[in-house]
């Protein structure tokens, strides 16, 4: 399980960074999304991996906390997902506006010469 999670984070972040460095705005936004997924998984992993353990303790008091998953990273991930989703949506709007205003989907708003 550790290997799978680590590989998933690595692949997501790696492809995200590569795509983010590409010149097309569509590639950049897909790269940012993948990067956000990788980071969210990473936050989740920072609460340590538990299998079959609930993050919420039942009502009524004292239990052994080691039998429960850490709830804090899960709530952090929830917040991070919402925020990154919202800002990515905003970015999408600006991207479409830039496409309309400049007539190209190059991130600099103008095409580079063919020889480059």
């Amino acid at each position: 399980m550790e290997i799978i999670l680590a590989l998933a984070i690595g692949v997501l972040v790696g492809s995200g960074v590569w795509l983010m460095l590409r010149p097309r705005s569509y590639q950049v936004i897909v790269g940012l999304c993948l990067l956000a997924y990788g980071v969210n998984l990473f936050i989740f992993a920072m609460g340590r991996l538990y299998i079959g353990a609930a993050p919420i303790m039942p009502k009524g008091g004292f239990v052994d906390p080691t039998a429960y998953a850490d709830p804090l990273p899960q709530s952090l991930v929830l917040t991070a997902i919402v925020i990154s989703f919202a800002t990515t949506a905003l970015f999408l709007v600006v991207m479409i506006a830039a496409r309309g205003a400049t007539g190209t989907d190059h991130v600099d708003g103008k095409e580079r010469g063919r020889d480059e």
Partner: protein
Amino acid sequence: MNDALSPDHLIIAPILIPLVAGAIMLFYNDQNRQTKLMMGLAAVALTFIASLELVADVKSVTEQGGTVVGLYPLGNWPVPIGIVLVLDRLSVMMVMLTALLAGPSLIYAAAGWHGKGQHYHSMFQFLLAGVNGAFLTGDLFNLFVFFEVMLAASYGLMLHGSGPERIRAGLHYIAINLAASLLFLIGVALIYGTTGTLNMADIGRALYWLDGTDRLLFHAAAGFLGLAFLIKAAVWPLCFWLPPTYAAASPPAAAIMAIMTKVGIYVILRLSLLVLGPDAGPSAGFGAPALMIAGVLTMAFGMIGILGTPELARKGGYLAIISSGTVLAAIGFAQAGGGPMMLGGALYYMVGSTAAISAFFLIAEPVSRGDQGSDTAQTPETEPDPLSESWAPMGLDTVEDVATPASTRTVSWLTMAVCFGLVAAMLAGLPPLPGFIGKFAILRGAVEDNLSHTGALPAILWVYAAMLILSGLGALIALMRFGIRRFWAEAGPTPRILALEVVPAVILLAMIALQTLRADALLSYTRATAVALLEPATYRDAVLKNAQDVRAAPVVNLAPEQPGNEVEVDP
């Protein structure tokens, strides 16, 4: 001053006032821009009064030897578990500075800019709420949330007025900030993974218990966080987004965004001295050399940039970069043990230079209006907006743009020239203005606190001192060259300058003048702030006074032997 049972509710006021004001504005049609302007000014005034009261609190408490004035546990959760707002000398100073910059920027917006798009005033208030929240919070993840509030509002403000140039610059600005936010998250997650806490004061305490591997991971986390904040603070080589963005943003938006680079600096200052300060054991001074070198290089880059660019608004961006570099390098020196005098001078310099940069952005547009000799002849407002027609049918409930100013009084070109000259003199560090006093205080602190037994200064301090003077010289040459050409050499009709466009700069200049006249009071305040920042243990003890350190206690079995409380765990 306050016992734990009666938290001072005033602490949360600088966050709540703009947030509520911005939200109420959304209920009104955006055509009522004058009403919204008045509401915005009232909210800023209220925030300023609240910050005045908080400053008075801080002063009365710190005279008795305390550092942290107030804790505000949100939801009244016990401290290391719940989120807490912390008020100390540094945060209240920054809150006050924000309110002081916000007023002139809003007045300037009344000259027509707030009518060139939707919901300018709401976004402005949300930006203030985010900035104040970032200054006041004592929790790392809460800081992230306030950062995002601030950034989301700044995206809107940056794009306010639309036009291809803004959209193109905005695309870069948003992309780089999204990437920086992800770095921030990685750093936060790593810190939680190693220390198990997100409370800034508690992190410093937990650091003591870290073993070798965890400490390495913690340093990696500090590196990630540092990277995220250095991008915000626009440090070379992470600063290339700043000049085009701030030049493309509308002047009132750029003026308030001048405080945003200082948010990055504030967080670096707070965390590096609180967590990685002199008492952090093996982690003491982590990142200090990077801050020093990057700060000095940033000043050099800003100096070259300001000499190289012909456009006045971009010069403003490079001035912001120089100011960032100056303060960051001073933070690096303070973290490495350079003494509080230098840091106090740097904080004084930061207050004055931020106000001056804000004023610079406000006068850059009227000064370059109709300028024949530079690229700014085609300002975005004179271009036809290709988007206005394509937006209209989208049913976004948009309100047509109006550019009529709130008042049509005009002022003479000479007034403009005098304002420009004063702001330029301030930014170049000419006596008797605070730019000079601040730099002088930094240099004096650098020499007095760091002379070794042989009477020699460390080489990096020499380089810093040289850059401090050279960057001022660069700014002086660049601005003087522009001023002479614009105000003396150019013939032809002078542009029409609205009074509303000069009054904000005059207010900021009055602030700077006050800072000169009362330099002694402010310098002693910033020096006391620096002394407090360099004693992180006091801050930690104040924040965590009721919080038991579970790491220090032996591990106890929390499950009592009661059969009724046993809970089945699904296999």
